[in-house]
């Protein structure tokens, strides 16, 4: 291996570029050749150009734990992650199957509750879940599509096998980086990308708009779609802007909307104008102070009334959070079989549900081998990675587990696949995951590829942007 991969060491991991040790797959041949003809200084220089462009664009990610860093660049790594056509076919089918199951499960728990009565999932796990919304019982949902925008987090183990790590059925973020990273790649590395057939991603905005139109209530003419954002201080505000622009729809905040006669209107220069379909990037709690958190100033009083009356569509539907809960996740393979009569195309990572006494006992006995996750949190907060944790961290985790076992699950540490990554002037192996995005209205469409997140810290398995992660362009070969 010459060029930038000359000193690259993938260790014992599966490498997205080089496959299993000493056995590089054919489909990465073209990109490997091109990387071999680049020297490190040139790669570094172009990486800096790309970084400057991101800075100038103000592409930002707010990190709540760093109070003063309101604007921070989500680091972009210039070496792409490549997926073969066959691997993508499997992923795409697996994601569609998973989303179909999530939607059937949601329709069931807010309807007949057969899966609970049949004992597939413990009823109290669902009905007692903080994200279960009894207000949603028997609310009609267009096409049974509860999670219209869904992100399925997928990892790959040391054998290269794909498995689902987490479902994101509420308001998954990151799709804007998929599109921006591709733009960046095409601009900064025209020579790397030319003559390789990469499936395009720029169709996402129009597809999202079509989905919003498909779920809108009947109306004369084109339904008015808007994107509802919590505002400029939200960590994903950049993405809200991006998606509103891609769809060509107004980016509204709660204060721009008003409900009259169970219909939603926006306040414009010419008075009130009817709104039919809302892509809301606001959590359930904040949506309507009349029904949920009364102190919410971000929401719209009366929104739930309009929603129940069928005069406005919300994407995603209210109450989807119960389906992507880390505790419900453990039951997903069984739910796939129950609702679809199929074997799961993408398996789960083995999961111990600590609310069950045996699982808790096992977890406590193998704490230093396991990853322990709180079920309620998102974004990598509160995770303890056993093999990496100090004695004190393990003891703190043990205390938390004993105090509130139902709040935790544990999983074996997966030897996540790696990808060559430019870090501090050298190309090194860093762990990656993948978040494909699926849009569901009348049917489900999966954006080719998805967001590849990379853990930039050496040896780190946590890829979340709030925990020192970056991202890569993801190529699905055509």
């Amino acid at each position: 291996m010459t060029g930038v991969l000359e000193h690259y060491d993938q260790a014992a991991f599966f490498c997205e570029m080089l496959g299993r040790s000493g056995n590089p797959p054919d489909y990465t041949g073209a990109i490997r050749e091109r990387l071999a003809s680049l020297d490190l200084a040139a790669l570094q220089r172009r990486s800096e150009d790309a970084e400057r462009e991101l800075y100038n664009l103000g592409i930002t990610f707010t990190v709540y734990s760093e109070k003063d860093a309101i604007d921070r660049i989500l680091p972009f790594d210039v070496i792409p992650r490549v997926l073969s056509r066959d691997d993508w076919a499997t992923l795409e089918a697996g994601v569609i199957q998973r989303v179909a199951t999530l939607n059937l499960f949601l329709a069931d728990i807010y309807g007949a509750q057969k899966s609970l009565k049949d004992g597939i999932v413990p009823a109290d796990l669902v009905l007692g879940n903080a994200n279960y919304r009894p207000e949603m019982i028997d609310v009609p949902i267009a096409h049974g599509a509860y999670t219209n925008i869904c992100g399925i987090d997928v990892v790959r183990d040391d054998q290269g096998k794909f498995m689902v790590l987490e479902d994101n059925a509420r308001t998954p973020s990151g799709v804007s980086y998929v599109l921006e990273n591709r733009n960046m790649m095409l601009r900064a590395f025209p020579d790397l990308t030319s003559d390789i057939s990469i499936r395009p991603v720029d169709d996402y905005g129009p597809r999202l708009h079509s989905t919003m139109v498909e779920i809108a209530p009947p109306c004369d003419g084109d339904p008015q779609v808007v994107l509802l954002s919590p505002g400029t201080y939200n960590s994903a505000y950049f993405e809200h802007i991006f998606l509103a622009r891609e769809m060509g729809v107004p980016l509204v905040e709660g204060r721009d909307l008003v409900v009259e006669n169970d219909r939603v209107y926006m306040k414009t220069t010419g008075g009130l104008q009817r709104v039919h379909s809302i892509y809301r990037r606001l959590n359930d709690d904040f949506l309507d102070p009349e029904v949920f958190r009364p102190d919410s100033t971000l929401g719209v009083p009366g929104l739930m009334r309009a929603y129940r009356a069928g005069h406005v569509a919300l994407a995603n539907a209210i109450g989807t959070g119960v389906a992507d809960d880390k505790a419900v996740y453990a039951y997903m393979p069984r739910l796939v079989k129950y609702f679809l009569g199929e074997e799961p195309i993408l398996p789960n990572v083995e999961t111990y549900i600590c609310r069950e006494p045996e699982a808790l006992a096992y977890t406590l006995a193998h704490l230093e081998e396991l990853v322990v996750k709180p079920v309620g949190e998102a974004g990598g907060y509160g995770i303890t990675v056993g093999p990496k944790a100090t004695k004190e961290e393990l003891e703190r985790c043990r205390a938390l587990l004993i105090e509130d076992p139902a709040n935790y699950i544990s999983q074996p540490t997966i030897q996540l696949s790696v990808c060559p990554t430019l870090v501090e002037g050298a190309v090194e192996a860093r762990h990656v995951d993948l978040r494909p995005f699926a849009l569901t209205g009348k049917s489900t469409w999966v954006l080719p590829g998805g967001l590849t997140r990379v853990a930039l810290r050496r040896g780190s398995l946590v890829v979340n942007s709030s925990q020192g992660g970056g991202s890569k362009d993801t190529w699905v070969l055509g």
Partner: protein
Amino acid sequence: MARLLARFAEETFWLARNLERAENLARILDVNETFSRDARGSQNWPSIVHLHADTERFFKKHQAATANTVIHYYTLDPDNPSSIISCLSAARAGARTLRPLISTELWTQINVFHAWFKTLTPSDIGRSDLSRLCARIKEGCQTHTGILEGTLYRDESWHFYELGKYIERADQTTRLLDIKYHMLLPSVADVGSPLDVSQWNALLRSAAGYHAFRRVHPRGMSPGGVAGFLIFNPSFPRSVMLSVTTVEEILGRLRQRYGLRSGYTALEVLDGIRGTLASGDIHDLLRSGLHEFLDWIQVQLIKVTDALGEAYFGHPPATEGQSQEQQ
């Protein structure tokens, strides 16, 4: 066709005003620096503070209005809501909110311009650097104006941008003139002297109006000629007359093309200003008091802004004597 959100209309209006303010502040500092090169220089800096009605706030922070304190207060001081950094920060925040409407190029330019300005320290704004610094600020603001002209989709939002820009321009031109008036106050005897003419000359240049003035008045330069030009000339881009006429036109177009009929109060006030300008004469003005006239214009422009707020931005009606203008 989706109508413009009231909140976006207001943000667009203030984006224009903040950029225009930053540019004019750079012009005022620049012209004052030029004036203060003469012997009476030490008198000049307090006038900027008076001009912005900032006396109380300023002297809470500083003992004296010297070149250093005034320049710092109006460039880098984030606690001063009318400093350049405050204008640029507000403009950037506004542009961030307006990202769904404005071009990526427009956003990037403001973002980078603001980021550059934020890196400046007091050692970068010494008097020897001021003129260069002001030139760069003006250039940044003009780049913004240029990109906006070339990329902003000409729908409702563009009209609200133009309203903001020209209202602010009219206001700032009255302030630029007023600063000169303040300076002349203690020395009426100097009127018409060679020194005085050079100062009016510098004032014109700071408004980028010297050559335009020369085309209208090939010979001579009198205070009345310059003040009259900046107030009444119908073709000079920064004159009060042109700004007010443009605001009136834009408002008319908003009402006709977009059916926004509620701007009637604003039109009425504008009609009053234009009527006064049309029948006005600079020599009468100088006799009856230029400062009072400029002050009256500023009050009328605040009334226009308040009327726009009620008509289009969803503000509740202002009670008597209470202005809703942001500072």
